[in-house]
């Protein structure tokens, strides 16, 4: 076999994590991006900076604070205990929550750019044609921002697949629960299993290339936008 069962399990877990995180961020990130694109509030700069923090923070720093927040004495940990969910650290859903925070800018910023590029005029036109703001959002803004959604989804998915630091801090290294592909490669290297590490790394390399190729094929300008983000 090219990959052993542990490798396949970690790849399956990684894809599951990336799909769930991308879907959650589509729902959570869209209103945030819309607000950042349209708001004239003075707090816009503050919120924009908070959203962009994972771009510049070392993953271990973000992971550390998330671990504290999810811990028994943290606000998230307290909430999950009250709700009867239990502790999140070292669980799959803890990993999901951490990844949502970590990948937030990769969803929000391309969407914010897409919404900003639409401008006011199409929404004003929709209003003079009888569309409420919500109606105009769904029938004009969302369709016009479609390329931005595709870019944001691909970048978020790919970024989640490639996570390592935050995953290790929050999820640890539990097979089938939190051992994602990047951690599996790390394990192989630690165990001096270079051939297996190489095969996993090659899979990740091809995957990353295919994602970027798809992005290029869909929209030649998408990477430029991603770099700007």
């Amino acid at each position: 076999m090219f990959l052993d069962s542990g490798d396949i399990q970690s790849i399956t877990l990684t894809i599951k994590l990336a799909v769930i995180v991308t879907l959650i961020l589509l729902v959570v990130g869209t209103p945030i991006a819309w607000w950042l694109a349209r708001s004239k509030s003075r707090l816009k700069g503050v919120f924009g900076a908070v959203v962009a923090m994972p771009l510049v923070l070392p993953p271990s720093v973000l992971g550390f604070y998330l671990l504290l927040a999810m811990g028994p004495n943290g606000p998230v940990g307290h909430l999950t205990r009250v709700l009867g969910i239990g502790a999140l650290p070292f669980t799959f859903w803890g990993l999901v929550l951490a990844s949502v925070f970590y990948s937030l800018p990769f969803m929000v910023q391309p969407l914010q750019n897409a919404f900003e590029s639409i401008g006011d005029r199409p929404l004003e036109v929709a209003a003079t044609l009888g569309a409420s703001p919500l109606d105009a959002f769904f029938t004009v803004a969302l369709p016009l921002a479609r390329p931005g959604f595709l870019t944001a989804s691909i970048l978020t998915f790919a970024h989640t697949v490639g996570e390592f630091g935050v995953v290790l801090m929050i999820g640890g290294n539990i097979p089938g629960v939190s051992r994602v592909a990047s951690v599996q490669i790390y394990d192989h290297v630690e165990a001096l299993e270079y051939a297996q590490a190489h095969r996993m790394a090659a899979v990740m390399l091809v995957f990353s290339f295919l994602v970027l190729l798809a992005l290029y094929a869909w929209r030649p300008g998408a990477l430029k936008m991603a770099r700007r983000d």
Partner: protein
Amino acid sequence: MNLSMNVRKSFGAFNLSADISVSGERVGIFGASGSGKSTLVSMLAGFLKPDNGEIVLDGECLFSSSKRISIRPEQRRIAMVFQQHSLFSHLNVKHNLLYGFKRCRPDLRRIDFDALVQVLNLEEQLDREVANLSGGEKQRVALGRAILANPRLLLMDEPLSALDDSLRFQIIPYLKSVSEHFGIPYLFISHSLIEMRLMTDSALVFEKGLMVEQVSSEQLARNRMGQSQVGYINLLRLGRPLPSAGLFAYPWGAGQLLLSAGSERDDSLAELSSKDIILFKQHPEAISARNLLQCSVRSLFNSGRKVGVELECDGNSLIAEVVQDAVDELKITPGSTIFAAIKASAFRMLPS
């Protein structure tokens, strides 16, 4: 339409103060860039809130700072056509046209989709993507979309300024259909005198954020003749031309006009600038211009540094423009007889 606006708005150093009371079906707002006309229209459409004041349309208060009323744009039933067509690029022509129609209350729908498509000559375009349309087609779709929303008022904010000259005059008849075919009153915003003449009956003139004049479009053209590069535009309604060697001979009052370009239609509209009419005190012996009309002077009026001479020629009216020295030299006075020479190529046919 009965519109009353008493509003104030400030942006930094720019202050708009408008106190308007206007009624009519074809009203213009005229002014140079930065005069405040687009700001006024944005406040009427509801995109921009006045700092204070009141807007009342057909008896309904749309905005009142004192009564704390501000009707949302989508509830005002005021549609708008912009300088840029602003079509929805993700929808084809048909779905663009139907966007406002679908959102209009069924009991308020009085414009028939098929009739509109026919009037705007869009039958062949319905399934096309808007990106593939020409500039003129896009503007017709934008106009149709606004009409189908069944508004009680249509705002046209410089809808022709993004088009080139030939396309501009092709679109004007479609714009005029708004009131002529569909009975929708409109406010037409422009800085072009010829557009004002063709599209409106009366005009509100704005300068530096203030309304300085409320006049008929005809009077506006006379008042601005002296400052305008194109002068006063005479509009001549012409019938079917008679056969003539190399030229188009149009019966005009008791006489005829020879034009170098024309159409075989029964009803044509031609424009002639006041600058293209040369006046003679006496009948010239020989002249290259193909039209020499004996006219009587009806009146004189001043416009900037120019003098407008209103002529009566073969039962029709024409306005020529001269300088004061020419008036004195030719002794042009009301009631005097004068000869007007016009080249056949000076006329321009407008689409009817």
